[in-house]
């Protein structure tokens, strides 16, 4: 006495975020949860009335009611309420994936201890006259002071009033984008890219005339999972985890280590150690440039109680660079701190202690100006090696930066 249920997510503007699989929840009229899964799943249910709910990471709810009939294929269409639709197709990922609170990038305190916030509002288009703003980028390893400013061919893909999206090409080394605007501390963000997988950088002009920075992964499901995971929404993260497995993401020519890192961080965040299998080891061994590969392996081993091996993995991050993800930065700092405090020569050698101490010097400098609410490592300071919260007085004399003021204020 059962029927099947298919789902269709219908945004007002088709292809707004592609054919992304969205977590769905099926409940009985008494609200008891019957099944959870993804919108791409076909569910088998007993005939009867059901309510279907999907919550986007930013909080929009899509709800519908379906009467499942036996022996037939039933379809339920989910769409956001009209007033919750994304205003522009190009803003869809930002609109549906990033909650209002995550759209707030924290500006550093003034000396008096008060706090100011930059409201990251893609939809807030009542802009003041924009101040000059520039973008530039760096590549390299901060730990080894081996960074260079890049001559980036900024390829802007989306262009709405007060909002600009750039496609940043992939590369197999850590890359940092820096947003420069007068009277604000420069914002640095480590980008989620790999050789075959670019990302989209978003610059948004907010109501007070300032700009903020965000990035979205090429893999929309991984991007969505990252946002659910950051908010601690375990059920939605688990549902997406069925889709984003290491087997799918790390095999083949176009394997996606950034999406795989998102999946592994989510499993660590929710302590699903048993599901990690050899995920972190593969990521570590196959992508020897990716800082998060060694951090993820280290944290995985530490959770298993294998701390000596974990220490080796964490120390290897020095050859790779600063983690892309702020969860990684946090794990790296906390574990190195713990291991240095153990101090026992049997556990940590003098050489290892020296390496860890050197790493911690930079990590503490960076973390003091890092916004750990951001999914990607994001900190302030004009000099990417000497973070601070000083407001920019004059633009640095550089030919490589892109002045986006005119583009964004059109």
């Amino acid at each position, binding site marked *: 006495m059962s029927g099947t249920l298919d789902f269709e997510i219908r945004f007002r503007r088709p292809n707004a975020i592609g054919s992304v699989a969205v977590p769905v929840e099926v409940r009985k*009229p008494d*609200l008891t949860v019957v099944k959870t899964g993804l919108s791409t799943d076909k569910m088998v249910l007993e005939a009867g009335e059901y309510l279907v709910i999907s919550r986007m990471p930013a909080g929009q709810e899509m709800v519908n009611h379906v009467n499942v009939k036996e022996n037939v294929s039933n379809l339920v269409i989910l769409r956001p309420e009209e007033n919750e639709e994304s205003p522009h197709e190009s803003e869809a990922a930002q609109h549906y994936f990033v909650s209002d609170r995550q759209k707030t990038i924290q500006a550093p305190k003034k000396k008096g201890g008060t706090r100011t916030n930059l409201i990251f509002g893609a939809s807030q288009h009542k802009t003041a006259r924009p101040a000059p703003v520039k973008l530039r980028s760096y590549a390299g390893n901060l730990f080894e002071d081996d960074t260079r400013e890049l001559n980036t061919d900024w390829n802007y893909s989306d262009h709405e009033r007060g909002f600009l999206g750039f496609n940043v090409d992939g590369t197999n080394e850590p890359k940092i984008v820096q947003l420069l605007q007068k009277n604000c501390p420069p914002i640095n963000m480590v980008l989620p890219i790999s050789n075959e997988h670019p990302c989209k950088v978003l610059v948004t002009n907010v109501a007070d005339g300032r700009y903020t920075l965000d990035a979205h992964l090429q893999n929309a499901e991984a991007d969505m999972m990252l946002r659910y995971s950051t908010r601690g929404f375990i059920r939605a993260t688990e549902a997406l985890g069925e889709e984003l497995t290491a087997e799918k993401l790390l095999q083949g020519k176009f394997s996606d280590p950034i999406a795989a890192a998102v999946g592994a961080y989510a499993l660590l*965040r929710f302590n699903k*150690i048993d599901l990690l299998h050899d995920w972190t080891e593969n990521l570590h061994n196959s992508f020897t440039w990716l800082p998060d590969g060694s951090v993820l392996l280290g944290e995985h081993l530490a959770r298993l109680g294998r701390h000596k091996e974990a220490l080796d993995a964490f120390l290897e991050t020095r050859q790779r660079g600063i983690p892309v993800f702020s969860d990684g930065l946090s794990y790296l700092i906390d574990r190195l701190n713990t291991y240095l405090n153990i101090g026992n020569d049997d556990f940590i050698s003098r050489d290892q202690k020296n390496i860890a101490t050197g790493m911690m010097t930079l990590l503490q400098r960076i973390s003091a100006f890092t916004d750990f609410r951001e999914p990607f490592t994001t900190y302030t300071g004009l000099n990417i090696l000497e973070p601070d919260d000083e407001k920019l007085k004059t633009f640095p004399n550089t030919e490589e930066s892109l002045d986006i003021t005119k583009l964004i204020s059109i």
Partner: protein
Amino acid sequence: MSLVINNKAAMNGQPGVHIFISGVSLYKHLPGGESHSLAVADYGMKQLSSTALSAFKFYRWITDETVSLRLPIATCRVVLSPSNGEKDILPELAAANFDPCDRAHFAKEVRAWRDDAASHKDSIAIFYFAGHGIQNSKTNTVLLLDDFGDPAEGDLTNTASVGNIFDGMAPPQTVAGLKNIARTQFYFIDCCRVFPPQFKHFATINSPDVFKVELSGREDRHAPIFYAALPDTKAYALQNEQTFFTKALIECLNGAAGDIRRDEDGNDDDEPKWHVSAQTLNMALSNYFSEIANLPNTNQEFSMGGIPTGDKTIRWLDGPPEVRARIRIDPGLAVSNVKLEFIDSNGNLSSPAAESQDDIIRCRIKAGSYRVNARIAPPNGVYKDFEDSILRTVLPPVFNLKRKVL
């Protein structure tokens, strides 16, 4: 007195809930405190007026016999340093005679709490603190105890590190006595998490350990930490009343974070029950903290940390809790002509008492699935009824809907 409930003997080794509650409003070494020797480095802190009171309200809530926790209470410890104002407001608090929440009592009672929580893996450990807090690094919160700032001691001597307490509650590699530490742990940290500017240019300034932490064994805890504030931000309170976080927390635990599912540790044929779990609490506080707490225009934001794995039930509810319904009427001018009807899946009609402001009608309705009609009463030629065609899930804490009556 700190150990206010001790049912260990009666429970005869069975798993139970072990609770540690701490709160400070009166700081000895801050201006207005009992001591003449003021803190040299006070980080701009002042006396508080509602944190110990909030801790006391949490204590009263969790020990209320009508609250069905997932397991029976085995032990409950309370250390509080209330202000005189709080004692005046609540004589019960003044009469309670709890030990003060200074470093010595705090450390002693936290250690005793851990020892008790280590008696059974299936037990639940609950830690609550309300008072001043700061970050000594971007990733660690330090709780300021009532003798914080004693000029005869180091700046952070009379404090406790959340990281140290959390790590000290981890299943250890070798310490046999802690092998059976409760694997389900809930932490509620109701304090500011400001990172003092003077710390930014130093290596981490340490808070003395409460626990000697050894390297952990296999990490298999379910241990979310619910923070009242994001790192580097403040938490707020209503003077002489309650902190916004504890207010929201208790409302969530009373049903605003309710949901109906099967218990994740139960059997497949168990009846689903209304309950509050780690995950439903996180969802409610993540999405609606300011609304549940009636937060004024501040930048306080809830956040979750720790190891929020699984979805452990915290308490059972007797039935479907109330939901705050918020129906936006379009056009707003019609709001005074609209009467809301909630029709459940069996066709039963409810028209709850409602109040309207601007274009929004607010009411409270029991959680369930409803068709939500907007009826023009009395009918007029300008606006028309909106009859809902589908059942909608009305789940705590807040149900939002828009109705067009033109």
